[in-house]
């Protein structure tokens, strides 16, 4: 079977518009989460990771487009433009496009939005991105809650294995919107302070926004130094509840087990876990249980939500890209916001950025609908 690699990549976020800058800021302990006062987004001040609108406009203007694009489309285009140009890949019928998003242009449903509400159709978003860059294949839009970003990598790998494509570009993004903030607030899931994944003092999530993009390829010749091989991946449902995680972590446990089987690795091979860690009470506890059922409690782990908030459809892709750079730099980045273990099972949360020899990492995600995904990646460069 073909090997599959993750290569060229980009992150557009509140702490930088390219992956190296973002990683450098994480190393320095810079978080993008700030107190936002914007009554158009939420009635009271709230903590979130929001990208400066002027920075988006400036970066987008440099691309020289005269057409009107939404905030989300501009973020996606800025990110994918960099990844695509750097890769030098020609857009033939062997190259696919996957968009990972939960809500797309959901802000256009607001009657005050200058764009028509029809812009909220996710298929339309797919075609806008396709047409901007001139992809010749039909875009695949994946909307599978908070696992979308990791699942998109699995789906790209399968389309390559099946011979549908040789290379796939994935772009993942969601924006901070009144729609999302009001919804998570109605669940009483939002933290009134910067989020603290796995910590005893955690009190919920912060919402964030990014656009992240990556080239998935079977071609070993066109890889960046931080490239990784996708060794195994799996996605399993909890079959338990639509809005709460399984108390036993069943779906996550099965996802990791199945990803390990395909990757032919065991818990002892994993050097680092890039976990989901939303900082809600139930999610973090569920992860600790699932990881311990797999004997992964000692593996260094972080949640990157303390830097970016929960970026929904972008999060899995964003966090996988940071994981690639973590392996490349042989560095474990501190799990922002964590001070004291607040889950019932032992897990090894990274409290200080440290060096170490890293070859394999596990990425996990879980989301509404009871979905979970896991993927194992291996460093390519020796």
């Amino acid at each position, binding site marked *: 079977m073909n090997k599959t690699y993750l290569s060229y990549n980009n992150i557009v976020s509140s702490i930088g518009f390219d992956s190296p800058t973002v990683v450098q800021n994480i190393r320095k302990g810079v978080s993008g989460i700030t107190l936002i006062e914007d009554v158009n987004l939420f009635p009271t001040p709230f903590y979130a990771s929001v990208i400066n609108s002027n920075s988006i406009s400036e970066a987008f203007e440099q691309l020289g487009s005269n057409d009107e694009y939404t905030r989300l489309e501009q973020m996606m285009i800025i990110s994918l433009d960099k990844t695509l140009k750097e890769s030098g890949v020609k857009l033939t019928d062997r190259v696919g496009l996957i968009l990972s998003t939960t809500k797309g242009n959901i802000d256009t449903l607001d009657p005050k939005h200058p764009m028509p509400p029809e812009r*909220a159709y*996710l298929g339309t978003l*797919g*075609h806008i991105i396709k047409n901007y860059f001139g992809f010749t294949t039909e875009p695949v839009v994946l*909307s599978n809650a908070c696992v979308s970003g990791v699942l998109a990598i699995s789906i790209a790998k*399968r389309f390559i294995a099946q011979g549908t494509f040789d290379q796939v570009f994935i772009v993942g993004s969601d924006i901070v919107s009144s729609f999302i903030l*009001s919804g998570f607030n109605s669940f009483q899931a939002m933290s009134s302070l910067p989020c603290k994944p796995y910590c005893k003092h955690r009190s919920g999530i912060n919402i964030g926004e990014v656009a992240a993009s990556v080239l998935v390829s079977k071609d070993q010749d066109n890889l960046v130094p931080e490239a990784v091989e996708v060794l195994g991946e799996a*996605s399993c449902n909890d079959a338990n*509840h*639509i809005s709460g995680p399984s108390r036993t972590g069943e779906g996550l446990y099965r996802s990791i087990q199945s990803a390990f089987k395909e990757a032919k690795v065991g818990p002892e091979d994993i050097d680092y876990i890039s976990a989901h860690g939303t900082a809600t009470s139930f999610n973090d506890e569920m992860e600790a249980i699932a990881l311990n059922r797999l004997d992964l409690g000692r593996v260094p782990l972080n949640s990157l939500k303390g830097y970016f908030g929960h970026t929904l459809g972008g999060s899995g892709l964003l966090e996988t890209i940071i994981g690639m750079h973590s392996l490349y730099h042989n560095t474990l980045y501190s799990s922002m916001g964590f001070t004291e273990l607040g889950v019932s099972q032992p897990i090894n949360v990274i409290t200080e950025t440290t060096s170490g020899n890293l070859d394999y990492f596990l990425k996990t995600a879980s989301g509404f609908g009871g979905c979970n995904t896991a993927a194992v990646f291996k460093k390519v460069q020796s």
Partner: protein
Amino acid sequence: MKVQQLKIKAYCSIFNNKVMLNDQLLFENQETDFSSFIKLAYKNMDTNYPKFFKMDDLSKLGFLAADILLKPLTTDSERANNIALAFSNSASSLETDRKHQDSIVDKENYFPSPAIFVYTLPNICLGEISIRHKLYSENSFFIFNHFNAGYLYDYATCLINTGKADEVLCGWINRDTDDYEAFLYLVSTEGSITHNKEEIIKLYTTK
């Protein structure tokens, strides 16, 4: 990778106020709107799952179509079924998204509800099906402007041939302003219909 000729074991559609299983009409009522029709269909199918009434329209539609196909496989079954779900549509969860949006548009009359918000994701329907049939399997929800038989064919084939799933329940469930449509088919190693793009399109267009 094991490469084998896969089959379509069964298919179901809910469309134009009719419920069809393979080429057999199970239920029809032309007198009602979607909301009443789907409840009548639920009763007629002896579904017996009270949580159905809490679901949004998209989940009701997908749940009922899936239940008709999966019930014979998962009822009284001791063994775990590794049946993956690969669904698609064009309107995502927009019909419910609009309801949530209506609840937040007026700051003086602001009433967002978690019972509505949770259904503003299309994959919630897959979660409902997974709970009902105890499926600890893979779920994915794709959005295309139109039914895309080619991508669904490739995806289901890969899931079975790489051992990720034993069977895949695929299809299209869409709910938009004045419109609804469900067409699901079960890809398996058993069955009488060849699993290929042409057959999928034929079954979809003649539903």
